[in-house]
């Protein structure tokens, strides 16, 4: 096994991205909406994005730990269904901000809050394209050495440091320095 674990599926147009495509730094997160550690990492990522501005592109991929978290899959489906209406990030943010309210009954409320067409959202939810995408994310995560959630990759290399703001920012900045 090589010393550093790398992202086997490069970031592409299929991904949900925030930030410029030509940014020198790409941060990929494999995450689970019901995972408390991902919930804790959510404001950290926001803060890092704010600090690095256009130097950073952020990508989120699904890695729902369904054995540990009963609503992880529903939440991932909600985000992907919202994506079909062009509102992935709105749903992504809301799910993390309301992490303790992910019961299937509540999800339509969040869809309404971000202004989704509820009927379409309801239909899209169980579309195979949604399930397929979550599965693909999961597979690429497993192959890339995802070892729990969240797992981060900085420019394609797994980040094994602490998920706090200072550590993550320092790792990103040092990557920026060597470029």
């Amino acid at each position, binding site marked *: 096994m090589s010393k550093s674990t790398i992202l086997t599926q490069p970031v592409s147009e299929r991904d949900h991205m925030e930030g410029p495509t030509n940014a020198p730094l790409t941060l990929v997160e494999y995450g689970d909406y019901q995972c408390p550690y991902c919930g804790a990492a959510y404001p950290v990522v926001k803060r890092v994005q704010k600090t690095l501005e256009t130097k950073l592109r952020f990508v989120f991929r699904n890695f729902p*730990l369904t*054995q*540990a978290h009963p609503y992880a899959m529903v939440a991932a489906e909600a985000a992907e269904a919202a994506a079909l209406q062009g509102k992935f990030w709105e749903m992504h943010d809301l799910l993390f901000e309301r992490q303790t309210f992910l019961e299937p009954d509540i999800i339509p409320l969040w869809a309404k809050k971000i202004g989704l067409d509820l009927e379409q959202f309801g239909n899209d939810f169980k579309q195979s394209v949604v399930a397929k995408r979550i599965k693909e994310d999961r597979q690429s995560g*497993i*192959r890339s*050495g995802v*070892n*729990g959630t969240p797992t981060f990759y900085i420019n394609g290399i797994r980040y094994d440091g602490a998920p706090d703001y200072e550590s993550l920012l320092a790792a990103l900045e040092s990557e920026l320095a060597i470029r």
Partner: protein
Amino acid sequence: MKTLLPGVQAPDFSLPTTPDQKVSLSEFRGQPVVLVFYPADWSPVCSDQLALYNELKVEFSEFDAQILGISVDGIWCHLAFSKDRKFHIPLLADFEPKGAVARQYGVYREKDGESERALFVIDTEGVIRWSHVSPVGINPGADGILKALESIAKDEKTASVSH
């Protein structure tokens, strides 16, 4: 102590998995086995690592692979840990004599009285095909295990064709 390397016959063992049941490695001859040595129940990285493998039940079952967790914790500790985390993976107690199996595989850390965080993938003939020792604080993920299982499956296929 040297970690056993690929190509070596995996030493057989028999360890408790419940208060009145023991499991032997040789019982799984004919299917691949993934041995997951981890330092201790309840410690954060271990539980994440096992939670991940627990989650990958489907992926492992595609290879008909049996995954076994092993630590020096006693059986009652394992039971409580398994129940709390809703694990489906059998956890074996390398408890008495303490760490005997970890020693056989060359992954016992005398100083801490715990095993390394080590993985062994064993083929259908009981031969070690891949082994990996991680830094204790780093969760190794599952990619290496799946690659080893794939390679075993490929060899099996080739063998069955040439017979």
